[in-house]
Protein backbone atom coordinates (compact mmCIF):
# COMPACT_ATOMS: atom_id res chain seq x y z
CA UNK A 1 0.00 0.00 0.00
CA UNK A 2 1.11 3.51 -0.60
CA UNK A 3 1.87 5.64 2.35
CA UNK A 4 0.70 9.24 2.08
CA UNK A 5 2.20 12.28 3.71
CA UNK A 6 -0.11 13.62 6.44
CA UNK A 7 -0.47 16.80 8.41
CA UNK A 8 -2.09 17.94 11.64
CA UNK A 9 -2.55 21.37 13.16
CA UNK A 10 -1.02 21.97 16.59
CA UNK A 11 -2.34 24.87 18.70
CA UNK A 12 0.38 26.04 21.10
CA UNK A 13 0.41 28.66 23.84
CA UNK A 14 0.60 32.35 23.04
CA UNK A 15 -1.37 32.04 19.81
CA UNK A 16 1.27 29.84 18.24
CA UNK A 17 -0.35 27.72 15.57
CA UNK A 18 1.75 25.19 13.70
CA UNK A 19 1.43 22.53 11.06
CA UNK A 20 2.97 19.18 11.91
CA UNK A 21 3.89 17.06 8.90
CA UNK A 22 4.46 13.31 9.02
CA UNK A 23 5.14 10.48 6.65
CA UNK A 24 7.45 10.50 3.64
CA UNK A 25 7.62 13.79 1.75
CA UNK A 26 8.42 12.43 -1.67
CA UNK A 27 6.91 12.77 -5.11
CA UNK A 28 5.01 9.51 -4.71
CA UNK A 29 3.28 10.53 -1.49
CA UNK A 30 2.82 14.27 -1.75
CA UNK A 31 -0.19 14.57 -4.07
CA UNK A 32 -2.92 14.64 -1.41
CA UNK A 33 -0.97 16.64 1.13
CA UNK A 34 -0.30 19.39 -1.38
CA UNK A 35 -3.99 19.67 -2.24
CA UNK A 36 -4.92 19.80 1.47
CA UNK A 37 -2.28 22.39 2.33
CA UNK A 38 -3.50 24.60 -0.47
CA UNK A 39 -6.98 24.34 1.04
CA UNK A 40 -6.30 25.34 4.67
CA UNK A 41 -6.38 28.87 5.99
CA UNK A 42 -3.34 30.43 7.66
CA UNK A 43 -1.63 32.15 9.27
CA UNK A 44 0.71 29.66 10.91
CA UNK A 45 3.78 30.30 12.99
CA UNK A 46 5.74 27.19 12.17
CA UNK A 47 5.92 23.99 10.14
CA UNK A 48 7.24 21.04 12.08
CA UNK A 49 9.22 18.56 9.99
CA UNK A 50 10.63 16.49 12.83
CA UNK A 51 8.21 13.64 12.11
CA UNK A 52 8.82 13.22 8.39
CA UNK A 53 10.67 10.35 6.77
CA UNK A 54 12.22 10.52 3.31
CA UNK A 55 12.37 13.90 1.62
CA UNK A 56 12.98 14.79 -1.99
CA UNK A 57 12.87 18.05 -3.90
CA UNK A 58 9.13 17.81 -4.49
CA UNK A 59 8.57 17.49 -0.74
CA UNK A 60 11.02 20.31 -0.11
CA UNK A 61 9.26 22.49 -2.64
CA UNK A 62 5.84 21.80 -1.10
CA UNK A 63 7.10 22.69 2.37
CA UNK A 64 8.88 25.77 1.17
CA UNK A 65 5.95 27.01 -0.89
CA UNK A 66 3.63 26.56 2.07
CA UNK A 67 6.06 28.36 4.36
CA UNK A 68 6.30 31.24 1.87
CA UNK A 69 2.54 31.56 1.45
CA UNK A 70 1.58 31.22 5.10
CA UNK A 71 4.55 33.05 6.59
CA UNK A 72 5.50 30.11 8.81
CA UNK A 73 9.00 29.12 9.94
CA UNK A 74 10.34 25.70 9.10
CA UNK A 75 11.48 23.79 12.20
CA UNK A 76 12.81 20.34 12.87
CA UNK A 77 14.13 19.81 9.34
CA UNK A 78 16.77 17.16 8.83
CA UNK A 79 20.07 18.03 7.17
CA UNK A 80 18.92 16.65 3.88
CA UNK A 81 15.60 18.46 4.05
CA UNK A 82 17.36 21.73 4.79
CA UNK A 83 19.74 21.20 1.89
CA UNK A 84 16.92 20.44 -0.52
CA UNK A 85 14.83 23.36 0.66
CA UNK A 86 17.84 25.60 0.09
CA UNK A 87 18.22 24.18 -3.41
CA UNK A 88 14.64 24.81 -4.46
CA UNK A 89 14.62 28.11 -2.62
CA UNK A 90 17.68 29.25 -4.57
CA UNK A 91 15.71 28.78 -7.70
CA UNK A 92 12.89 30.92 -6.39
CA UNK A 93 10.60 31.93 -9.15
CA UNK A 94 9.51 35.40 -9.89
CA UNK A 95 5.77 35.79 -9.98
CA UNK A 96 4.37 32.84 -11.82
CA UNK A 97 3.92 34.04 -15.34
CA UNK A 98 0.49 32.95 -16.45
CA UNK A 99 1.54 31.52 -19.75
CA UNK A 100 -1.57 29.94 -21.10
CA UNK A 101 -3.87 30.15 -24.05
CA UNK A 102 -5.24 33.65 -24.52
CA UNK A 103 -8.86 33.76 -23.42
CA UNK A 104 -11.43 33.86 -26.16
CA UNK A 105 -12.31 37.50 -25.68
CA UNK A 106 -13.55 39.65 -28.59
CA UNK A 107 -10.06 41.12 -28.91
CA UNK A 108 -8.61 37.63 -28.87
CA UNK A 109 -10.95 36.60 -31.66
CA UNK A 110 -10.03 39.65 -33.71
CA UNK A 111 -6.35 38.97 -33.15
CA UNK A 112 -6.79 35.33 -34.17
CA UNK A 113 -8.65 36.36 -37.33
CA UNK A 114 -5.93 38.85 -38.15
CA UNK A 115 -3.23 36.27 -37.62
CA UNK A 116 -5.11 33.83 -39.81
CA UNK A 117 -5.49 36.38 -42.63
CA UNK A 118 -1.83 37.34 -42.44
CA UNK A 119 -0.75 33.69 -42.42
CA UNK A 120 -2.99 33.09 -45.43
CA UNK A 121 -1.49 36.04 -47.30
CA UNK A 122 2.00 34.84 -46.48
CA UNK A 123 1.07 31.37 -47.67
CA UNK A 124 0.08 32.79 -51.07
CA UNK A 125 3.34 34.74 -51.22
CA UNK A 126 5.39 31.69 -50.28
CA UNK A 127 3.63 29.58 -52.86
CA UNK A 128 4.33 32.12 -55.59
CA UNK A 129 7.96 32.20 -54.51
CA UNK A 130 8.06 28.41 -54.64
CA UNK A 131 6.57 28.40 -58.14
CA UNK A 132 9.09 31.01 -59.24
CA UNK A 133 11.98 28.96 -57.87
CA UNK A 134 10.65 25.88 -59.61
CA UNK A 135 10.38 27.69 -62.95
CA UNK A 136 13.92 29.02 -62.57
CA UNK A 137 15.16 25.51 -61.75
CA UNK A 138 13.38 24.08 -64.78
CA UNK A 139 14.79 26.83 -67.02
CA UNK A 140 18.29 26.14 -65.71
CA UNK A 141 17.87 22.47 -66.44
CA UNK A 142 16.70 23.21 -69.97
CA UNK A 143 19.81 25.30 -70.55
CA UNK A 144 22.15 22.83 -68.83
CA UNK A 145 20.57 19.41 -69.38
CA UNK A 146 23.68 17.77 -67.93
CA UNK A 147 22.64 18.97 -64.48
CA UNK A 148 19.47 16.92 -64.62
CA UNK A 149 19.52 14.18 -61.99
CA UNK A 150 18.38 11.26 -64.08
CA UNK A 151 18.91 8.64 -61.37
CA UNK A 152 16.60 10.54 -59.13
CA UNK A 153 14.05 11.05 -61.90
CA UNK A 154 14.03 7.36 -62.78
CA UNK A 155 13.67 6.42 -59.13
CA UNK A 156 10.67 8.70 -58.76
CA UNK A 157 9.15 7.30 -61.96
CA UNK A 158 9.46 3.90 -60.35
CA UNK A 159 8.05 4.98 -56.98
CA UNK A 160 5.18 7.09 -58.33
CA UNK A 161 4.34 5.06 -61.42
CA UNK A 162 5.50 1.48 -61.60
CA UNK A 163 4.84 0.59 -57.98
CA UNK A 164 1.37 2.08 -58.16
CA UNK A 165 0.37 -0.20 -61.04
CA UNK A 166 -1.09 -3.07 -58.98
CA UNK A 167 -3.21 -0.99 -56.64
CA UNK A 168 -4.45 1.42 -59.34
CA UNK A 169 -5.14 -1.50 -61.65
CA UNK A 170 -7.22 -3.32 -59.06
CA UNK A 171 -9.05 -0.16 -58.04
CA UNK A 172 -9.92 0.72 -61.66
CA UNK A 173 -11.05 -2.80 -62.44
CA UNK A 174 -13.47 -2.66 -59.52
CA UNK A 175 -14.67 0.83 -60.46
CA UNK A 176 -15.34 -0.46 -63.98
CA UNK A 177 -17.39 -3.30 -62.56
CA UNK A 178 -19.44 -0.90 -60.45
CA UNK A 179 -20.17 1.52 -63.33
CA UNK A 180 -21.17 -1.24 -65.73
CA UNK A 181 -23.25 -3.13 -63.22
CA UNK A 182 -25.06 -0.11 -61.78
CA UNK A 183 -25.44 1.48 -65.22
CA UNK A 184 -26.95 -1.71 -66.59
CA UNK A 185 -29.52 -1.83 -63.79
CA UNK A 186 -30.74 1.69 -64.60
CA UNK A 187 -30.54 1.44 -68.39
CA UNK A 188 -32.40 -1.83 -68.39
CA UNK A 189 -35.53 0.03 -67.32
CA UNK A 190 -35.54 1.73 -70.74
CA UNK A 191 -34.42 -1.39 -72.54
CA UNK A 192 -31.23 0.47 -73.33
CA UNK A 193 -28.76 -1.80 -71.58
CA UNK A 194 -26.57 -1.85 -74.69
CA UNK A 195 -25.63 1.75 -73.78
CA UNK A 196 -23.82 0.36 -70.77
CA UNK A 197 -20.85 0.08 -73.13
CA UNK A 198 -20.99 3.79 -74.02
CA UNK A 199 -21.39 4.68 -70.37
CA UNK A 200 -18.45 2.59 -69.20
CA UNK A 201 -16.11 3.53 -72.05
CA UNK A 202 -16.72 7.27 -72.12
CA UNK A 203 -16.85 7.71 -68.36
CA UNK A 204 -13.65 5.72 -67.87
CA UNK A 205 -11.65 7.67 -70.43
CA UNK A 206 -12.99 11.14 -69.70
CA UNK A 207 -13.50 11.17 -65.97
CA UNK A 208 -13.13 8.24 -63.66
CA UNK A 209 -9.88 6.74 -64.88
CA UNK A 210 -7.87 9.88 -64.40
CA UNK A 211 -9.79 11.24 -61.41
CA UNK A 212 -9.54 8.09 -59.33
CA UNK A 213 -5.89 7.75 -60.28
CA UNK A 214 -5.23 11.34 -59.22
CA UNK A 215 -6.83 10.69 -55.84
CA UNK A 216 -4.80 7.53 -55.40
CA UNK A 217 -1.54 9.22 -56.41
CA UNK A 218 -2.26 12.16 -54.11
CA UNK A 219 -2.69 9.72 -51.23
CA UNK A 220 0.27 7.56 -52.17
CA UNK A 221 2.88 9.93 -53.54
CA UNK A 222 1.75 13.45 -52.63
CA UNK A 223 1.82 12.48 -48.97
CA UNK A 224 5.20 10.81 -49.28
CA UNK A 225 6.65 13.89 -51.04
CA UNK A 226 5.51 16.12 -48.19
CA UNK A 227 6.61 13.75 -45.43
CA UNK A 228 10.00 12.99 -46.95
CA UNK A 229 10.95 16.54 -47.85
CA UNK A 230 9.56 17.73 -44.51
CA UNK A 231 11.68 15.26 -42.57
CA UNK A 232 14.74 16.24 -44.59
CA UNK A 233 13.98 19.85 -43.70
CA UNK A 234 13.84 18.98 -40.00
CA UNK A 235 17.09 17.04 -40.05
CA UNK A 236 18.78 19.95 -41.87
CA UNK A 237 19.50 17.83 -44.93
CA UNK A 238 18.02 20.55 -47.12
CA UNK A 239 20.34 23.14 -45.56
CA UNK A 240 23.26 20.76 -46.04
CA UNK A 241 22.36 20.46 -49.73
CA UNK A 242 22.26 24.22 -50.15
CA UNK A 243 25.67 24.68 -48.55
CA UNK A 244 27.19 22.04 -50.82
CA UNK A 245 25.76 23.96 -53.74
CA UNK A 246 23.04 21.48 -54.64
CA UNK A 247 19.74 23.18 -55.28
CA UNK A 248 16.98 21.33 -53.42
CA UNK A 249 14.66 22.47 -56.21
CA UNK A 250 16.74 20.67 -58.81
CA UNK A 251 17.56 17.64 -56.72
CA UNK A 252 14.27 17.02 -54.94
CA UNK A 253 11.40 18.96 -56.44
CA UNK A 254 12.04 18.72 -60.19
CA UNK A 255 12.32 14.90 -60.29
CA UNK A 256 9.13 14.56 -58.28
CA UNK A 257 7.24 17.07 -60.40
CA UNK A 258 8.37 15.37 -63.60
CA UNK A 259 7.56 11.92 -62.32
CA UNK A 260 4.16 12.87 -61.01
CA UNK A 261 3.22 14.85 -64.14
CA UNK A 262 4.27 12.22 -66.62
CA UNK A 263 3.19 9.20 -64.62
CA UNK A 264 -0.29 10.47 -63.90
CA UNK A 265 -0.88 10.75 -67.64
CA UNK A 266 0.23 7.16 -68.18
CA UNK A 267 -1.48 5.82 -65.06
CA UNK A 268 -4.73 7.61 -65.98
CA UNK A 269 -4.78 5.90 -69.37
CA UNK A 270 -3.92 2.56 -67.78
CA UNK A 271 -6.69 3.03 -65.24
CA UNK A 272 -9.21 3.75 -68.00
CA UNK A 273 -8.24 0.57 -69.83
CA UNK A 274 -8.50 -1.54 -66.67
CA UNK A 275 -11.82 0.03 -65.84
CA UNK A 276 -13.19 -0.90 -69.28
CA UNK A 277 -11.90 -4.43 -68.84
CA UNK A 278 -13.73 -4.53 -65.50
CA UNK A 279 -16.90 -3.36 -67.25
CA UNK A 280 -16.50 -5.96 -70.01
CA UNK A 281 -15.92 -8.62 -67.41
CA UNK A 282 -19.13 -7.94 -65.50
CA UNK A 283 -21.15 -7.48 -68.68
CA UNK A 284 -20.33 -11.04 -69.66
CA UNK A 285 -22.36 -12.21 -66.69
CA UNK A 286 -25.04 -9.60 -66.06
CA UNK A 287 -25.76 -8.55 -69.68
CA UNK A 288 -24.49 -11.59 -71.51
CA UNK A 289 -22.45 -9.43 -73.86
CA UNK A 290 -19.36 -11.41 -74.88
CA UNK A 291 -16.11 -9.98 -73.61
CA UNK A 292 -14.54 -9.27 -77.01
CA UNK A 293 -17.75 -7.85 -78.42
CA UNK A 294 -17.81 -5.38 -75.56
CA UNK A 295 -14.24 -4.26 -76.32
CA UNK A 296 -14.74 -3.90 -80.07
CA UNK A 297 -17.95 -1.96 -79.44
CA UNK A 298 -15.94 0.41 -77.23
CA UNK A 299 -13.85 1.37 -80.29
CA UNK A 300 -17.00 2.34 -82.13
CA UNK A 301 -18.78 4.32 -79.43
CA UNK A 302 -15.90 6.15 -77.69
CA UNK A 303 -14.71 9.10 -79.78
CA UNK A 304 -10.97 9.70 -79.98
CA UNK A 305 -11.21 13.02 -78.22
CA UNK A 306 -12.39 11.25 -75.04
CA UNK A 307 -8.97 9.68 -74.82
CA UNK A 308 -7.35 13.08 -75.36
CA UNK A 309 -9.47 14.61 -72.60
CA UNK A 310 -8.04 12.03 -70.18
CA UNK A 311 -4.51 12.43 -71.45
CA UNK A 312 -4.65 16.22 -71.11
CA UNK A 313 -6.14 16.21 -67.63
CA UNK A 314 -3.68 13.63 -66.27
CA UNK A 315 -0.50 15.70 -66.40
CA UNK A 316 -2.27 18.77 -65.01
CA UNK A 317 -3.51 16.81 -62.02
CA UNK A 318 -0.09 15.24 -61.58
CA UNK A 319 1.55 18.65 -61.56
CA UNK A 320 -0.86 19.90 -58.91
CA UNK A 321 -0.28 16.87 -56.68
CA UNK A 322 3.50 17.19 -56.91
CA UNK A 323 3.41 20.94 -56.30
CA UNK A 324 1.20 20.58 -53.24
CA UNK A 325 3.34 17.76 -51.81
CA UNK A 326 6.72 19.39 -52.41
CA UNK A 327 5.59 22.86 -51.38
CA UNK A 328 4.09 21.67 -48.10
CA UNK A 329 7.18 19.57 -47.44
CA UNK A 330 9.42 22.60 -47.90
CA UNK A 331 7.25 24.58 -45.48
CA UNK A 332 7.82 22.16 -42.58
CA UNK A 333 9.40 23.87 -39.62
CA UNK A 334 10.05 23.09 -36.00
CA UNK A 335 8.94 19.64 -34.97
CA UNK A 336 7.60 16.27 -35.99
CA UNK A 337 4.02 17.42 -35.57
CA UNK A 338 4.54 19.91 -38.41
CA UNK A 339 5.43 17.02 -40.73
CA UNK A 340 2.10 15.39 -39.98
CA UNK A 341 0.11 18.59 -40.41
CA UNK A 342 1.84 19.55 -43.65
CA UNK A 343 1.38 16.06 -45.08
CA UNK A 344 -2.34 16.16 -44.35
CA UNK A 345 -2.63 19.61 -45.87
CA UNK A 346 -0.73 18.49 -48.97
CA UNK A 347 -3.12 15.60 -49.63
CA UNK A 348 -6.28 17.57 -48.87
CA UNK A 349 -5.21 20.51 -51.02
CA UNK A 350 -4.18 18.27 -53.88
CA UNK A 351 -7.43 16.30 -53.97
CA UNK A 352 -9.54 19.42 -53.56
CA UNK A 353 -7.72 21.28 -56.33
CA UNK A 354 -7.95 18.25 -58.61
CA UNK A 355 -11.72 18.03 -58.18
CA UNK A 356 -12.26 21.78 -58.68
CA UNK A 357 -10.13 21.72 -61.84
CA UNK A 358 -11.95 18.65 -63.06
CA UNK A 359 -15.22 20.57 -62.92
CA UNK A 360 -13.66 23.37 -64.99
CA UNK A 361 -12.32 20.86 -67.51
CA UNK A 362 -15.72 19.19 -67.84
CA UNK A 363 -17.35 22.49 -68.83
CA UNK A 364 -14.41 23.58 -70.95
CA UNK A 365 -14.16 20.43 -73.09
CA UNK A 366 -17.91 20.39 -73.67
CA UNK A 367 -17.78 24.03 -74.77
CA UNK A 368 -14.99 23.38 -77.27
CA UNK A 369 -17.05 20.63 -78.83
CA UNK A 370 -15.42 17.60 -77.25
CA UNK A 371 -18.59 16.71 -75.42
Amino acid at each position, binding site marked *: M*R*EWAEFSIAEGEGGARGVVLSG*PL*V*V*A*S*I*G*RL*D*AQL*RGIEGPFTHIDLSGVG*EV*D*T*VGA*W*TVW*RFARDSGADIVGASD*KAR*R*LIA*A*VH*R*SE*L*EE*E*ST*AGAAALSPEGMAALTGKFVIAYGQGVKHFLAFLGELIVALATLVRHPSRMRWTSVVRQFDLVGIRALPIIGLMSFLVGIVIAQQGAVQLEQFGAEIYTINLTGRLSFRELGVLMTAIMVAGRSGSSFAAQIGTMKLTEEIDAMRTIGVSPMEALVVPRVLASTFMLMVLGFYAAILSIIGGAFISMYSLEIPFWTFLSRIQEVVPNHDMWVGLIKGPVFGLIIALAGCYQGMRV*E*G*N*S*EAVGIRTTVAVVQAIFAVIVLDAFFAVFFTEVGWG
Partner: protein
Amino acid sequence: MSLEHFTGDFPIVVEGLKTAFGDHVIHEGLDLSVRRGEILGVVGGSGTGKSVLMRAIIGLQPAADGRIEVLGEEIAGDHADDDIDIRARWGVLFQGGALFSTLTVAENIEVPLKEFYPEISPTLRREIARYKVMLSGLPDDAADKYPSELSGGMKKRAGLARALAMDPELLFLDEPTAGLDPIGAAAFDQLTRELQDTLGHTVFLITHDLDTLHEICDRVAVIADKRVIAVGTIPELLALDHPWIQQYFNGPRGRAAQDAQARVRAGTKAMDKPGGRGA
Protein backbone atom coordinates in the same frame (compact mmCIF):
# COMPACT_ATOMS: atom_id res chain seq x y z
CA MET B 1 4.94 1.54 -5.31
CA SER B 2 8.03 1.59 -3.20
CA LEU B 3 8.56 4.72 -1.20
CA GLU B 4 11.63 3.47 0.58
CA HIS B 5 14.83 4.59 -1.01
CA PHE B 6 17.35 1.94 -1.88
CA THR B 7 19.74 1.48 1.03
CA GLY B 8 22.03 -1.27 -0.26
CA ASP B 9 25.59 -0.54 -1.27
CA PHE B 10 25.29 -1.24 -4.98
CA PRO B 11 22.26 0.17 -6.79
CA ILE B 12 23.49 -1.33 -10.06
CA VAL B 13 24.93 -4.82 -10.20
CA VAL B 14 25.74 -6.47 -13.53
CA GLU B 15 27.00 -10.03 -13.53
CA GLY B 16 28.17 -12.05 -16.50
CA LEU B 17 26.26 -9.90 -18.98
CA LYS B 18 26.21 -10.97 -22.59
CA THR B 19 24.59 -8.85 -25.26
CA ALA B 20 24.62 -9.47 -28.97
CA PHE B 21 23.06 -8.21 -32.19
CA GLY B 22 22.59 -11.42 -34.13
CA ASP B 23 26.01 -13.00 -34.36
CA HIS B 24 27.79 -9.83 -33.40
CA VAL B 25 28.65 -10.11 -29.72
CA ILE B 26 28.98 -6.77 -27.94
CA HIS B 27 29.56 -7.83 -24.33
CA GLU B 28 30.54 -11.17 -22.93
CA GLY B 29 31.01 -11.94 -19.25
CA LEU B 30 30.74 -8.28 -18.27
CA ASP B 31 30.68 -7.54 -14.53
CA LEU B 32 30.10 -4.11 -13.02
CA SER B 33 28.94 -2.80 -9.66
CA VAL B 34 28.06 0.83 -9.12
CA ARG B 35 28.33 2.17 -5.58
CA ARG B 36 25.52 4.13 -4.04
CA GLY B 37 26.02 7.89 -4.21
CA GLU B 38 28.97 7.86 -6.57
CA ILE B 39 29.46 9.32 -10.02
CA LEU B 40 30.75 6.47 -12.13
CA GLY B 41 32.28 7.41 -15.45
CA VAL B 42 32.14 4.78 -18.20
CA VAL B 43 34.73 5.02 -20.98
CA GLY B 44 35.70 2.87 -23.90
CA GLY B 45 36.55 3.19 -27.56
CA SER B 46 33.84 3.87 -30.11
CA GLY B 47 31.76 0.77 -30.71
CA THR B 48 32.72 -0.99 -27.47
CA GLY B 49 29.11 -0.85 -26.37
CA LYS B 50 28.94 1.84 -23.71
CA SER B 51 25.49 2.93 -24.77
CA VAL B 52 24.42 -0.68 -25.24
CA LEU B 53 25.44 -1.38 -21.64
CA MET B 54 23.32 1.55 -20.47
CA ARG B 55 20.39 0.37 -22.58
CA ALA B 56 20.76 -3.13 -21.13
CA ILE B 57 20.74 -1.77 -17.58
CA ILE B 58 17.61 0.30 -18.17
CA GLY B 59 15.91 -2.62 -19.88
CA LEU B 60 15.83 -1.38 -23.47
CA GLN B 61 18.25 -4.00 -24.75
CA PRO B 62 17.51 -7.61 -23.85
CA ALA B 63 20.51 -9.46 -22.46
CA ALA B 64 21.46 -12.76 -24.07
CA ASP B 65 22.87 -14.00 -20.81
CA GLY B 66 23.75 -12.83 -17.32
CA ARG B 67 21.99 -10.92 -14.57
CA ILE B 68 21.26 -7.24 -14.07
CA GLU B 69 20.02 -5.91 -10.78
CA VAL B 70 18.97 -2.31 -10.40
CA LEU B 71 17.96 -0.88 -7.00
CA GLY B 72 17.75 -4.43 -5.69
CA GLU B 73 15.39 -5.64 -8.39
CA GLU B 74 16.14 -7.88 -11.31
CA ILE B 75 15.75 -6.26 -14.72
CA ALA B 76 14.11 -8.44 -17.34
CA GLY B 77 14.86 -6.92 -20.70
CA ASP B 78 12.25 -8.92 -22.58
CA HIS B 79 9.33 -7.80 -20.42
CA ALA B 80 10.33 -4.21 -20.08
CA ASP B 81 6.86 -3.11 -18.97
CA ASP B 82 7.06 -5.19 -15.80
CA ASP B 83 9.73 -2.94 -14.37
CA ILE B 84 7.36 -0.02 -14.13
CA ASP B 85 8.02 0.62 -10.43
CA ILE B 86 11.72 0.86 -11.02
CA ARG B 87 11.21 3.23 -13.92
CA ALA B 88 9.80 5.80 -11.56
CA ARG B 89 13.06 5.72 -9.65
CA TRP B 90 15.58 6.40 -12.39
CA GLY B 91 16.11 9.20 -14.85
CA VAL B 92 17.80 8.94 -18.22
CA LEU B 93 19.40 11.64 -20.34
CA PHE B 94 19.79 10.32 -23.87
CA GLN B 95 22.56 11.46 -26.14
CA GLY B 96 20.41 13.73 -28.29
CA GLY B 97 18.26 14.87 -25.39
CA ALA B 98 15.27 12.93 -26.80
CA LEU B 99 12.88 15.67 -25.75
CA PHE B 100 9.34 15.29 -27.06
CA SER B 101 9.39 17.81 -29.86
CA THR B 102 5.70 18.70 -29.74
CA LEU B 103 5.78 19.62 -26.05
CA THR B 104 7.37 22.61 -24.33
CA VAL B 105 10.21 22.05 -21.90
CA ALA B 106 7.88 22.35 -18.91
CA GLU B 107 5.42 19.91 -20.47
CA ASN B 108 8.29 17.52 -21.15
CA ILE B 109 9.16 17.55 -17.46
CA GLU B 110 5.53 17.07 -16.52
CA VAL B 111 5.16 13.92 -18.65
CA PRO B 112 6.73 11.45 -16.17
CA LEU B 113 4.97 13.14 -13.23
CA LYS B 114 1.60 12.85 -14.95
CA GLU B 115 2.34 9.26 -15.91
CA PHE B 116 3.32 7.99 -12.48
CA TYR B 117 1.53 10.28 -10.04
CA PRO B 118 -1.72 11.48 -11.57
CA GLU B 119 -2.93 12.65 -8.15
CA ILE B 120 -0.50 15.57 -8.18
CA SER B 121 -2.47 18.71 -8.95
CA PRO B 122 -1.72 20.57 -12.19
CA THR B 123 -0.59 23.60 -10.15
CA LEU B 124 2.00 21.63 -8.20
CA ARG B 125 3.07 19.82 -11.34
CA ARG B 126 3.65 23.12 -13.06
CA GLU B 127 5.60 24.44 -10.05
CA ILE B 128 7.72 21.29 -10.00
CA ALA B 129 8.48 21.68 -13.70
CA ARG B 130 9.50 25.29 -13.15
CA TYR B 131 11.88 24.69 -10.28
CA LYS B 132 13.42 21.75 -12.14
CA VAL B 133 14.02 24.08 -15.06
CA MET B 134 15.80 26.41 -12.64
CA LEU B 135 17.73 23.59 -10.97
CA SER B 136 19.05 22.48 -14.32
CA GLY B 137 20.37 25.97 -14.93
CA LEU B 138 17.99 27.08 -17.66
CA PRO B 139 16.63 30.60 -17.74
CA ASP B 140 13.07 31.05 -16.52
CA ASP B 141 11.60 31.69 -19.96
CA ALA B 142 12.97 28.40 -21.31
CA ALA B 143 10.13 26.54 -19.60
CA ASP B 144 7.60 27.58 -22.23
CA LYS B 145 9.86 27.08 -25.22
CA TYR B 146 9.74 24.17 -27.61
CA PRO B 147 12.85 21.99 -28.04
CA SER B 148 13.36 23.32 -31.58
CA GLU B 149 13.80 26.81 -30.13
CA LEU B 150 16.64 25.75 -27.82
CA SER B 151 20.37 25.59 -28.47
CA GLY B 152 22.24 22.28 -28.15
CA GLY B 153 23.43 23.02 -24.63
CA MET B 154 19.99 24.12 -23.50
CA LYS B 155 18.48 20.94 -24.94
CA LYS B 156 20.86 18.89 -22.81
CA ARG B 157 19.90 20.85 -19.74
CA ALA B 158 16.22 20.44 -20.56
CA GLY B 159 16.82 16.71 -21.01
CA LEU B 160 18.52 16.66 -17.62
CA ALA B 161 15.58 18.50 -16.08
CA ARG B 162 13.23 15.84 -17.45
CA ALA B 163 15.53 13.07 -16.20
CA LEU B 164 15.38 14.69 -12.76
CA ALA B 165 11.60 15.15 -12.84
CA MET B 166 10.90 12.30 -10.46
CA ASP B 167 13.83 12.93 -8.11
CA PRO B 168 15.41 9.69 -9.23
CA GLU B 169 17.78 7.66 -7.11
CA LEU B 170 19.69 6.73 -10.23
CA LEU B 171 20.65 9.04 -13.04
CA PHE B 172 21.92 7.76 -16.39
CA LEU B 173 23.75 10.29 -18.54
CA ASP B 174 24.81 9.33 -22.06
CA GLU B 175 27.58 11.64 -23.24
CA PRO B 176 26.11 14.74 -21.62
CA THR B 177 28.91 17.07 -22.69
CA ALA B 178 29.30 15.85 -26.29
CA GLY B 179 28.76 18.70 -28.69
CA LEU B 180 28.98 21.40 -26.05
CA ASP B 181 31.58 24.16 -26.10
CA PRO B 182 34.27 23.91 -23.38
CA ILE B 183 32.58 26.53 -21.21
CA GLY B 184 29.20 24.87 -21.59
CA ALA B 185 30.72 21.46 -20.95
CA ALA B 186 32.48 22.65 -17.80
CA ALA B 187 29.27 24.26 -16.57
CA PHE B 188 27.37 21.03 -17.23
CA ASP B 189 29.98 19.03 -15.30
CA GLN B 190 29.66 21.42 -12.42
CA LEU B 191 25.88 21.13 -12.53
CA THR B 192 26.06 17.32 -12.51
CA ARG B 193 28.35 17.42 -9.50
CA GLU B 194 26.31 20.02 -7.60
CA LEU B 195 23.04 18.22 -8.19
CA GLN B 196 24.61 14.98 -7.05
CA ASP B 197 25.91 16.67 -3.89
CA THR B 198 22.49 18.13 -3.16
CA LEU B 199 20.19 15.33 -4.18
CA GLY B 200 22.49 12.42 -3.38
CA HIS B 201 21.60 10.24 -6.35
CA THR B 202 23.91 7.74 -8.02
CA VAL B 203 25.16 8.73 -11.48
CA PHE B 204 26.04 6.40 -14.32
CA LEU B 205 27.86 8.62 -16.78
CA ILE B 206 29.01 7.61 -20.24
CA THR B 207 31.54 10.05 -21.59
CA HIS B 208 34.44 10.66 -23.92
CA ASP B 209 35.27 13.89 -22.21
CA LEU B 210 38.54 13.53 -20.30
CA ASP B 211 37.89 16.75 -18.43
CA THR B 212 34.58 15.38 -17.19
CA LEU B 213 36.33 12.23 -15.99
CA HIS B 214 38.96 14.15 -14.08
CA GLU B 215 36.60 16.78 -12.81
CA ILE B 216 33.56 14.99 -11.44
CA CYS B 217 33.85 11.21 -11.58
CA ASP B 218 34.48 9.34 -8.35
CA ARG B 219 35.44 6.21 -10.23
CA VAL B 220 35.91 5.28 -13.87
CA ALA B 221 34.99 1.97 -15.51
CA VAL B 222 36.86 1.05 -18.68
CA ILE B 223 35.14 -1.14 -21.28
CA ALA B 224 37.36 -3.05 -23.69
CA ASP B 225 37.50 -6.59 -25.07
CA LYS B 226 33.72 -6.96 -24.54
CA ARG B 227 33.93 -6.52 -20.74
CA VAL B 228 34.82 -4.05 -18.03
CA ILE B 229 38.58 -4.41 -17.78
CA ALA B 230 39.08 -2.07 -14.84
CA VAL B 231 37.18 0.12 -12.40
CA GLY B 232 38.81 2.64 -10.13
CA THR B 233 39.95 6.19 -9.64
CA ILE B 234 42.08 7.63 -12.40
CA PRO B 235 45.37 7.21 -10.46
CA GLU B 236 44.42 3.60 -9.82
CA LEU B 237 43.73 3.06 -13.50
CA LEU B 238 47.00 4.70 -14.49
CA ALA B 239 48.84 2.30 -12.22
CA LEU B 240 47.57 -0.57 -14.37
CA ASP B 241 49.66 -1.50 -17.31
CA HIS B 242 46.92 -1.88 -19.88
CA PRO B 243 47.92 -0.40 -23.25
CA TRP B 244 44.49 1.04 -24.06
CA ILE B 245 44.16 2.72 -20.66
CA GLN B 246 47.67 4.16 -20.92
CA GLN B 247 46.96 5.45 -24.41
CA TYR B 248 43.62 6.87 -23.36
CA PHE B 249 44.75 8.79 -20.31
CA ASN B 250 48.33 9.49 -21.40
CA GLY B 251 47.62 10.49 -24.98
CA PRO B 252 48.03 14.17 -25.87
CA ARG B 253 44.47 15.00 -24.83
CA GLY B 254 44.69 12.95 -21.67
CA ARG B 255 47.87 14.77 -20.67
CA ALA B 256 46.27 18.14 -21.28
CA ALA B 257 43.32 17.24 -19.08
CA GLN B 258 45.62 15.99 -16.32
CA ASP B 259 47.68 19.18 -16.46
CA ALA B 260 44.56 21.27 -16.28
CA GLN B 261 43.42 19.27 -13.29
CA ALA B 262 46.81 19.67 -11.61
CA ARG B 263 46.66 23.44 -12.16
CA VAL B 264 43.18 23.59 -10.64
CA ARG B 265 44.37 21.63 -7.58
CA ALA B 266 47.41 23.83 -7.14
CA GLY B 267 45.28 26.94 -7.52
CA THR B 268 42.82 25.81 -4.86
CA LYS B 269 45.63 25.03 -2.45
CA ALA B 270 47.19 28.44 -2.97
CA MET B 271 43.86 30.03 -2.23
CA ASP B 272 43.32 27.90 0.87
CA LYS B 273 46.42 29.34 2.48
CA PRO B 274 45.81 33.07 2.80
CA GLY B 275 48.82 35.02 1.67
CA GLY B 276 50.49 31.75 0.77
CA ARG B 277 52.12 33.16 -2.32
CA GLY B 278 53.47 36.31 -0.61
CA ALA B 279 54.87 34.41 2.34
